[in-house]
C-alpha cells in the first residue's frame, strides 16, 4: 500500500476521534439539557419530594401539578403572558418595519445624507443615553404605564440594522437596476425584489427582536407602575426572588408566604416554553442569515 499524503482532515476519522467528538458533544448537549430537565422535574414535584431532595429535584418521583394550578389560578401569570405576547408581537412588527426601511435606505449608495445617518446610528454604540434622560423622554412623551414604553425606546437595534444593511448590500445591484428600468419605485423594489430575497436575514433579525421583547425587564421596571401591566419577566423575577426580603425588615415583611420551589420552577417553565417554541420555525434560516451578516459586515 502506498501512502498518499493527505491533510489530516481528509483522513477517515479514527474510532478514538469519533468517540472523543461524541463525548464532547454529548457533554455540551447535557450541559444544556440537564438544567432544563431539573427545572421541569422540580416544577412537577410535590413539596415532600423537594424537601427530601434538599432543593432541586433530579430524579422525578411522581407528577404533581399543584404548582401549575397555583400559578394559573392567580390570573397574574396569564395576564403577564398576554402582556408579553402583545409586546413581543407588536414590538417585533414595529422593529422589523423600521429596521428594514432604515437598512434599505442606508444600503443604497447616494441616498440623502446616508453617510451622516449611518454615523449617527453607529454613534449610539459609543454614546448611550443615561437612565434618567431616557426616563424623562419616555414620561415626557406620555408613554409611562403604556405598553409602547416597552417597544419604542428599543425599537431600533443598531446591531440588527447593520446586519440587515450588509445583507441588502450583498444583493446584486443589477437586479435592482433592472427593476428600476421596468419602472419600479423604491418601495416596490424593496417589497417585490429585496425582501423576497432577504427572508433569511429578516427571520433571524425578527427572532433577535422577538427574544429581546420577550425578555424585556428593565424598561418595565422603570416605566410600568400598573401591576396589571407587568410583562412575564417581571413576574418571574418576583416569584424567583420572593422571600428574599432584607434582613432588617423584621417580622412585618415576612407575613406573606413565599412561593414554594415548585411554583418558582413552574413560572420558569411557562416563561421559557413560549419563546423556545419559536426557534424550530426559524432555525432553517439561522445559519445562512447570521453568516451573511457576519462575513459581509
Amino acid at each position, binding site marked *: 500500500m502506498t501512502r498518499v499524503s493527505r491533510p489530516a482532515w481528509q483522513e477517515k476519522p479514527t474510532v478514538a476521534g469519533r468517540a472523543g467528538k461524541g463525548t464532547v458533544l454529548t457533554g455540551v448537549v447535557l450541559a444544556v439539557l440537564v438544567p432544563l430537565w431539573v427545572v421541569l422535574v422540580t416544577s412537577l414535584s410535590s*413539596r*415532600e419530594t*423537594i*424537601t*427530601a*431532595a*434538599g*432543593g432541586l429535584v433530579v430524579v422525578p418521583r411522581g407528577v404533581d401539578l399543584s404548582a401549575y394550578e397555583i400559578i394559573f389560578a*392567580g*390570573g*397574574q401569570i396569564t395576564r403577564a403572558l398576554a402582556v408579553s405576547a402583545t409586546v413581543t408581537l407588536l414590538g417585533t412588527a414595529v422593529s422589523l418595519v423600521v429596521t428594514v426601511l432604515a437598512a434599505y435606505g442606508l444600503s443604497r449608495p447616494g441616498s440623502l445624507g446616508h453617510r451622516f445617518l449611518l454615523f449617527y446610528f453607529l454613534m449610539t454604540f459609543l454614546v*448611550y*443615553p*443615561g*437612565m*434618567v434622560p*431616557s*426616563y*424623562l423622554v419616555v*414620561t415626557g412623551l406620555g408613554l*409611562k404605564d403604556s405598553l409602547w414604553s416597552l417597544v419604542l425606546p*428599543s425599537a431600533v437595534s443598531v446591531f440588527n440594522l447593520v446586519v440587515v444593511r450588509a445583507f441588502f448590500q450583498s444583493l446584486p445591484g443589477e437586479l435592482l437596476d433592472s427593476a428600476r428600468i421596468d419602472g419600479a419605485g423604491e418601495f416596490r423594489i424593496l417589497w417585490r425584489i429585496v425582501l423576497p430575497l432577504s427572508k433569511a436575514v429578516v427571520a433571524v433579525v425578527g427572532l433577535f427582536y422577538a427574544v429581546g421583547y420577550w425578555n424585556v425587564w*428593565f*424598561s418595565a*421596571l*422603570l416605566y410600568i*407602575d*400598573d*401591576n*396589571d401591566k*407587568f410583562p412575564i419577566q*417581571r*413576574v418571574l*423575577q*418576583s*416569584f424567583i*426572588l*420572593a*422571600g*428574599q*426580603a*432584607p*434582613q*432588617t*425588615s*423584621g*417580622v*412585618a*415583611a*415576612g*407575613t*406573606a*408566604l*413565599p*412561593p414554594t*420551589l415548585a411554583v418558582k420552577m413552574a413560572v420558569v417553565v411557562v416563561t421559557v416554553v413560549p419563546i423556545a417554541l419559536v426557534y424550530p420555525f426559524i432555525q432553517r434560516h439561522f445559519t445562512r442569515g447570521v453568516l451573511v451578516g457576519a462575513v459581509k459586515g
Partner: protein
Amino acid sequence: MTSRRTLLTIAAIAGGGLLTGCGEKSTRGGATQQLDKLSALIPEARDVNLGIPPPDVIGTRPVADGYTRFPASLTDAISEKPGRGGAAIRGITPVWGPAPPAGRNNSYLVAVNDELGVPVEFSVQDGTSYADKIGALLGARDVPDLLCVPQWEVSKLARFGDAVNALFEDLTPHLRGAEVAPYPMLATFPAGAWRNSCWNEKLMAVPNPTDGPFPWVMFYRRDLFTKLGVKPPATIDELYRAGKEITKPRQGVWAFSDVFAMIQMYFKSPGAKDGWRRRPDGTPEFKYETPEFKAAAEFMAKLYREGLVHPDIVASRGADMKQLFQSGKLLITQDGMGAWQPMQAEQQNVTPGFDVQPLPLFPATGGDPLAWGDDEPISYTFLKKGLPKERVEEILRVINWCSAPFGTTEFQLREFGVEGKHHTRTATGPVKTDLGFKEIANQYFFISGRRPVIQPTPQTPKYVPEMLGYSNQTVKYLEKDPWDGLKLEMPARYKSGMTPFQDKFTDLVRGRRPFSDLDAIVKEWRAAGGDEARELMGRALADAGR
C-alpha cells in the same frame, strides 16, 4: 439596554458631600443643642387610651412588646372617615414576592379604601430592585403622592438629602409638637423613629418604627441536634466541635451555611454603620482593619477549609440556604429574624417535629457578647412636595388611620382584610385565606407606621415568647453606634467599592485566594475610598461635637 450600572454611574457622579441630619440621643454628651433643635421638630408623644389589653411579653427597647393571643374583642380607634372624597392618592410601596392585583381587581384594597373615604392607588414594586426604581423616579422628579423608602435603600440613593429637600413636603408645620393632635396614632410612635425622619433639620417623613433591631440571627435545627445528641454550642470551640460532629458528607449533611456575619459578631468585629467604630484615640476605623475581623475571617476560613460548610454554598453565591436548612442538609445557618416564624409555620407541616431555634449569642474572646443592630425605622413615607394644605392633611389622616395599633378594627382590616373573605376567624385568631395571601402585600403598612408589637401567630404559639426571650437577652449587648442618628452621605468611590471588596473577602475565607492576601486587600481598600470614607466619618463626629 440601560443597565443598573448606568444608574449607579450617574448617581456616583454627583456623590460626595455630607448631609448632617438630626437625631441625637439624649444619653450622649456634647450634642445638646442639636437635640433641642430636633425635639422642637418632632411630634409630642402622647398615648391613646383605646382600652387595648396590655402586651403579654414586654420587650426591652428597641425590641417591641409581644402578644401571645389576639384580644377577644377589637376596639374602634377612629370614628371619622379620614378621606374627604378627594382624588385618588397614588402610592408606591415595595413587595418581596409576586405583586398583588391592582385597583378594582383587588377586593382588599377596595374594602380598605371604602373605610378611608378616599382611594389609595398602589403601584407595588419589586423590593429587590426598588433602589433602581426610586433612583429613576427621584432623578426624573416624577414622584407619587406617597412614596415609601425603606431605610436600607436610603444609603444607596445618591444625594438623597438634596432629593428630599427638592421633592418632598416638609411635614414639620403639620406634625411638630402639639400640631400632631389631629393624628393621635402618629403621636404614639417612639421619639427615636421621628428623630430619624428629619433631614436638613426638618421633619420630612412619617417613620415606620422597627419591631426588632437585629440584622442577623444564628439559627439551628433543635430537632436534629437532639436527634444527634449534640449540645447547642455556647462557645466558639463548641461551635467548631459541633460542626465536626454534625458534618457527615456521606449522608449528605454538613454543619454550616455561610455564617460569616455571625462569626464576625462572635469575634466582636464592628457592625455599626456598616462596620465602622471609633478607636480609643477617636479616629474612625473600619472592620477590615481590626484584629477582630481578621480573627473572624481566620475562623470562617477554617470552617471552609475543613469542609464543614455545605458544598453547594462554597461553590455559589446564591445557593438556597433556606431550602438546605429546611431539608436538614445543613443544621446551622444565619438569617434575619423575619425568616424564623414563616419557616417554622410552613415546615412543621412537611417535617414532623421541625424545630428552628436561635442560638444564644456568645463572645469568642471573653467578656460580653456584641450584637449588631440599630433602631432605625423600617421605612419612611414621604409626601410629594407642593400639595395643597388640605390635601396634605387628608393624606396625613389616611396615614393616621393606617397607623392604628394592634387590637383595633382598623389594624385588623389593614393586616388581615375582610373576615370571611381574606381571613377566617378561629379560636386562636384570624387565619389568612388564599385570597388574603394573594391580595394583601403590606400595601398600607408601607405608607404608614404603627406602635410596633410582635403579633401572635396561631400556627406557632411558642414563637412570640421564644423570639422575645432571645431578643431581650441579646439587646443588652447591642453595639453602641457613635454616629447614631447622623445621616451620612458616603463617598461614591467608597460606596462602589463595597461589594467588590466584600467579594474579595469572600474569596479569601472560601480559600479561593491565599489568606496572606488579607493585609494587601485592606491596603487596597484604604486606597480605593476607605481612607476618604474615614475622613468623612471623622468629620461627621467632629461636626456633631462627639
